[in-house]
Structure formats: C-alpha cells, structure tokens
C-alpha cells in the first residue's frame, strides 16, 4: 500500500500523521483513555490523540514530493514545539 514515490507528475496522496510529543501531556488522549476504561474496555494503558491529513497533490515532475510535503508540515501543519509527525506517500487517491 505505502509506495514510496518521491517524484512524479501524477496525482499523489500524502498522508501525514501528527502526534503530540511523548513528553507533552495530551489532555485529549488522557480523556479518551479514561472514557474507554469507564466504558468497560480493560487493559487500555495509554492513548495518544493525533491528527491525520490526506493531501491530494498534483506535483510537478521536478519536485521531490516528500520534501515538499515535509515543508508543508514545517510551515503549517505541525507545531514542532509540541508535535511530531510522519509522512507516507500513496499513489493516486486513497481512502481510509
């Protein structure tokens, strides 16, 4: 599924996953963990609540797509003070 295609002119979907850095307390994750436990799900040890973005791009042939996407993360999508991220490139359109 995850096909690393770093250059190309076709449609590319980049999936970016953003998580709060491990040393940062994540109030949403904490709330979800306790809600799950309250609902009777046993064995939940930790929950991190992050974000996922799917970006459909039509990149120019000369571009290093992964590089472009990382720049999007740095410039806008991720706040590096509190967040980490990862990038996956998928060919064509992707649905979860």
């Amino acid at each position, binding site marked *: 599924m995850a096909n690393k295609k770093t250059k190309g002119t076709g449609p590319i979907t980049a999936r970016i996953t953003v998580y709060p850095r491990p*040393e*940062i307390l*994540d109030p949403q994750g904490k*709330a979800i963990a306790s809600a799950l436990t309250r609902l009777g799900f046993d064995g939940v040890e930790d929950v991190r609540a992050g974000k996922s973005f799917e970006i459909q791009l039509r990149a120019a042939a000369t571009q290093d797509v992964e590089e472009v996407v990382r720049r999007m993360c740095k410039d*806008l999508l991720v*706040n590096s*003070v*509190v967040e980490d991220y990862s990038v996956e490139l998928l060919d064509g359109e992707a649905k979860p």
Partner: protein
Amino acid sequence: MRCGVVVFPGSNCDHDVYHILKHVLGQEVTFLWHGEDSLRGSELVVLPGGFSYGDYLRAGAMAALSPIMAAVRRHAEAGGLVLGICNGFQMLLESGLLPGAMRRNRNLLFECRDVFLRVERDDLPFTRGYRKGQVLRMPIAHAEGNYIHHADQLESLEEAGRVVFRYVSPEGEVAAEDAAPNELGELWNVNGSINAIAGICNEEGNIMGMMPHPERCAEEILGNVDGLALFSSAVGALEVTA
C-alpha cells in the same frame, strides 16, 4: 496613528478592542487588514481574539502566516508594543514571537467564565497600572488555552520573570494545573495551564500575550473594570516614548 487593531478573517474581538481604545480611552485607532504589509505607523499593535481561519488545524496557526505578521515582527524587534489577546496570544505563540504552545483545555470544552488572575509583573508597559500580587477578575472564552512548554525552557521563562499573569483562587493562591475542582465543581485554573500561566511577555517586555479578555471588563456598566488599566498603561507608555 497610535493604535492598530489587526483584523484577520474570523477575528471577533477586533471591534471590542477598538471600542475600548477609541471610545473609553479616546485614542486614535485604526483597523489593519491581515493582508497588508504595513502597520501604517501604529505604535501599539493589538492582535485581537476570535477564531481566525475558524481555529481550524490549531488556533492561530494560519493567521500567524499572514502577510501582516512580518510587519508585526519588525515592529516588535524595533521595540514597538504588541499585545495578543486570546486568539492573538495563540498567534504570537504560533509565530514564535513568544515561546510555548497551547493545547485543548483540560476538560476539552470551550469555557467562557470569569477567572482570577494574579499580577506577576507591574513594570511592563502593559501592567504599570497594576500592583504586583494584585488579584484581578477577568473573563476567559476559549477552547485552547492550556499553555505548555518544555520543562527546561519553562524554567528559564520563569527565571527571567516573563510570566505576567497567573490563574489563582480569589484569595490569590496559584492554582495547580491538575488541581481537583472545589465543591462547587469550579477550577481556578480552568484550562490546565502549566504553572497556571495566563500571560507571558518577551525578554524586553514589549510583546505580551494573554488568554483572558481585558477588553471585556473595562467599562463600569459591565460591572467590572479590572481590564481597563491594562489598556491605559499601554497607551500611557506610548505617551512617554512619544
């Protein structure tokens, strides 16, 4: 022009700040459009509250990239006064003009209520009208006001005395970020900010950001004027430098 209030798509408190500066304090004020690249000579620049760009992604993140923010940065570096309130504070963090970041409030809810603040610095252009240790009552209205910073940087922020306001009990006791609610279900540190931080400034003290809304408590008829001194101090500081 003495005061400029920046308008972003989604600013909501722009008119409220304008009203205080113009009609309560009788200052010359102008609105500055986010797409402009000049502050048109404004000496005090206010980034107002609201939901710029709908607060989508992260509060303040998209506004922090607006053309006008470059001008705000230049103004600040030259020692000009910059005040960020609520969404404006979030923009200052997102743009790196002030350190740290915001998370969702600890109960994950939007909270609009009065909180109590202790004044930690009374020597800033924005706070000369207060006394250190004074307890103020001020409304908050936000969903992402849970301030955080990395432990070491937090320590240096504290050491440099750059925390301007802290959430406290009505008696002035600092409210821990994880304190349990009292018997009425109230939290004095509603959003769960680390070290009860409600407002900070830069090293030089000319940039200040805060989550509570001083412009909502600056008129007698609204039953609370605790926020007025903040604006009159800032305006007074301009007079001195002028």
